């Protein structure tokens, strides 16, 4: 029941070269695939040429996934290994217990199963992966010391470490790899993310000898290697899986630097140091056992209560810091504010070009002059985020800072453009054209953030003679209405690792999909297509810079702000850094005395 025929088809079409990069992104997004999976898919998507471009040589380490995948443009100081490597090793103190104030409790801790992203941070501390990836998307050895694509282009031979033991004493070997991979494929595992990474073409694993496996696919399958570095592909102890059966998600056993101790549901999950751990990949800064003795994930869904945990010292790290607390955390010398910019698009307002008044370019441009983003960021977000002026966030490949200045806040200019477009100010303070008042229908979700932001914009546009009717709609009914284009304006945001998010949002092929603005422009479509087909990173970057600028000039959107992930820690906690998805590793972390 947990097969993914949709995904099968998608992988199939990718590898046959029948799909462009954009098609993959679009369809993967529709399927709700995890970002690393999509990154992997893109790696497989070599423009029009079929995939086995990943030629069959011994891959020396480190290597780069053959894709135009961007290096993360910006990351917080704490996130950068370079920043933390300056710490004198002598100063590091071992021992101590970390309490992590966790905003969302996972349903299970089986990395290969139906555990979802809430389990990711906990799982990545307990499980080892076959490969490791740094923040530049480069691969390093982990449990596998080397890897090689076989001449048939459809199978990989992995050489494994011989000194690794699972937490229950079971030796890690070729059998364990085969067991884990076969288990992911087994429908009874109910795998959600891992099955997408392993893909539909996995046919089995041959145990060559105790420390060598060959993994077979029915077709060339490039995303495999990158996917192996994600926590979803954590290696599980075969003995423990057999012992616990259906209860394995509540009794996870891996080989990572921390071991599962206890999970009190709705309260805490505790993991303890694995004293025997001696096989860390070189993406970390030390070898041997973790510095911390224990990590307790305390599940505290309420934002303010979670913040209070940090204030009283009951927790040393919290995730999902509320906006209103960021300034206080920053200004407090006892805390470090960990701000990780998210790649993808900004939080933006769509302008539906399919009907008046936004069928007119001047009116759309007027909106870009009329909205005071600084005011929104100050009032609503306490200046935590940066105002946006481009369709791509600065953490995204292809972002061009010069596009930020295409518009600036200028009410006079907005008035002038509206006059020019024939919308004259009526006696009641509302602009009219052909007898029609300038009234906008705004559809929003029921989240408080959306109602606040739409009300601020409503107030900002009123002096310009524009009225807005705000309608909040719950659940999937909203998306359905937005796809149809019932609205004049709507809001959305996407966290995404590729600049083609622009094409997904504003390409004509997404009309009826995510192109809520109903925007259709041959010049833009041509640029998106070019971006899809170009593999050279520099060239691709230029294409997206140009696409960003042109899209802003055609103005089917008003970018509002760039989103970041907000976590906080006490200054005593040192050494942690996050992976490409924004999840924190605590293996290198230690607590100052």
């Amino acid at each position: 029941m947990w097969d993914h025929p949709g995904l099968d088809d998608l992988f199939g079409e990718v590898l046959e070269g029948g799909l462009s990069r954009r098609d993959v992104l679009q369809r993967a997004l529709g399927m709700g695939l995890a970002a690393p999976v999509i990154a992997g898919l893109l790696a497989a998507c070599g423009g029009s040429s079929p995939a086995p471009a990943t030629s069959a040589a011994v891959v020396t380490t480190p290597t780069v996934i053959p894709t135009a995948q961007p290096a993360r443009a910006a990351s917080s100081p704490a996130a950068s290994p370079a920043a933390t490597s300056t710490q004198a090793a002598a100063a590091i103190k071992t021992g101590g217990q970390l309490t992590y104030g966790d905003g969302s409790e996972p349903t299970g801790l089986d990395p290969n199963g139906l555990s979802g992203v809430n389990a990711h941070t906990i799982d990545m501390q307990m499980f080892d992966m076959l490969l490791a990836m740094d923040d530049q998307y480069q691969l390093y050895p982990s449990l596998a010391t080397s890897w090689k694509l076989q001449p048939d282009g459809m199978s990989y031979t992995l050489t494994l470490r011989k000194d690794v033991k699972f937490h229950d004493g079971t030796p890690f070997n070729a059998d364990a790899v085969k067991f884990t991979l076969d288990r992911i494929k087994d429908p009874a595992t109910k795998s959600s993310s891992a099955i997408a990474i392993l893909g539909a073409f996995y046919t089995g694993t041959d145990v060559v000898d105790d420390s060598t496996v060959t993994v077979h696919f029915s077709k060339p399958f490039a995303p495999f290697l990158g996917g192996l570095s994600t926590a979803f592909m954590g290696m599980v102890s075969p003995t423990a899986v057999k012992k616990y059966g259906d209860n394995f998600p509540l009794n996870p056993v891996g080989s990572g630097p921390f071991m599962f101790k206890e999970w009190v549901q709705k309260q805490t999950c505790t993991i303890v140091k694995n004293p025997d751990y001696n096989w860390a990949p070189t993406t970390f800064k030390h070898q041997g056992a973790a510095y911390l003795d224990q990590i307790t994930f305390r599940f505290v869904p309420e934002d303010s209560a979670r913040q209070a945990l940090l204030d009283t010292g009951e927790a040393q790290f919290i995730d999902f810091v509320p906006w209103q607390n960021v300034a206080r955390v920053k200004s407090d010398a006892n805390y470090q504010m960990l701000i990780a910019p998210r790649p993808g698009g900004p939080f933006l307002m769509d302008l539906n070009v399919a009907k008046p008044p936004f069928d007119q370019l001047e009116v759309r441009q007027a909106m870009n002059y009329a909205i005071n983003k600084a005011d929104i960021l100050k009032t609503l977000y306490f200046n935590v985020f940066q105002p946006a002026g481009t369709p791509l966030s600065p953490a995204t490949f292809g972002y061009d800072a010069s596009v930020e200045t295409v518009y600036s806040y200028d009410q006079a200019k907005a008035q002038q453009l509206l006059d020019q477009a024939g919308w004259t100010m009526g006696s009641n303070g509302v602009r009219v054209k052909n007898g029609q008042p300038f009234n906008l229908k705004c559809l929003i979700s029921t989240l408080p953030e959306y109602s606040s932001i739409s009300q601020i914009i409503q107030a900002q546009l009123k002096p310009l003679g524009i009225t807005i009717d705000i309608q909040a709609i719950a659940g999937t009914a909203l998306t359905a209405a937005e796809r149809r284009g019932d609205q004049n304006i709507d809001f959305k945001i996407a966290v995404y690792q590729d600049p083609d998010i622009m094409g997904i949002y504003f390409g004509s092929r997404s009309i009826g999909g995510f192109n809520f603005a109903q925007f259709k422009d041959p010049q833009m479509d041509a640029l998106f297509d070019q971006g899809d087909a170009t593999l050279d990173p520099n060239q691709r970057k230029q294409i997206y810079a140009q696409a960003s600028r042109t899209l802003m000039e055609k103005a089917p959107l008003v970018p509002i702000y760039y989103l970041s992930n907000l976590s906080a820690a006490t200054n005593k906690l040192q050494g942690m850094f996050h992976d490409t998805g924004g999840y924190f590793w605590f293996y290198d972390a230690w607590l100052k005395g």
Partner: protein
Amino acid sequence: MGTYVRGRLLRAIPVILGVLTLVFMMVHLLPGDPAEAIASQSPGMTQQDVQRIRVQLGLDQPLYRQYLTFLSRLVHGDLGRSIFNGQPVRQMILTQFPSTLELTLAGMSFAIVFGVVLGIASAVRHNSWLDSISMAGALLGVSIPSFWLGLMLIFVFAVRLRWVPVVGGSGISGLILPALTLGFSAAAIIARLVRSSMLEVLGQEYVQTARAKGLAGRTIIVRHALRNALIPVVTIVGLQFGALLGGAVVVEIVFARQGIGRMAVDAILQKDFPVVQGVVLLAALVYVVVNLLVDLLYSLLDPRISYD
């Protein structure tokens, strides 16, 4: 008495059945099929997959047959398993309920003690400053939303004063703030009710007779007046007990406590229907039992009320 209790328990059966039927209908008539909800958790699910899940969960069967299956399982004490972690719902409830019960009882105890004492004091010192202050307090008590009160208590007592931990303190120290938060509005309601009920009783002839006999003021109030004044209070306490179970949802989230309230919210958000059904069934059972206890208490308080 025994006959009465037996009769009441028998009459509870249709009530529970009605609740169960309603819950069952809820699952099947509300938009959003559990199969779709499960599918949305996994990438790449197609309509065929959704249909397969539907078959596996028995959702393709005619509604009446599903209902009968549901009932027959229930008779065997089987509440099903969580869709998301495969744990038996019965076990999940048994794990989480003690914490909710502890919280509710602590909140109720606080509400009764605080409410009755304040109510008596206000009635005895009718129209005094004490009366005005406690009744103003009671008005605040019913008006303050519990999530706000909880956060304020955390801020003052855990963050500023550091008297208690923010969350998860073991034993009494971890229970004080949640119990206060939960019991606050019930305390206010009880205080107002005790006051008006006492005022009425204190004006009655038998109280005047007791006074005329020269009985001590305390004896009159506690032994003669309060006992009769408590009958409407017991009714309200019973009703409030149910309200507190509902209020536990908010308090459990704010204070990050274990409990069926939090479990229910998570289950609803994840569309884990067997868990939702289990929690609703439990809540219905608690209501029935508490109502029965309230009725039995009447006869203890007032000998004129008899169930024989």
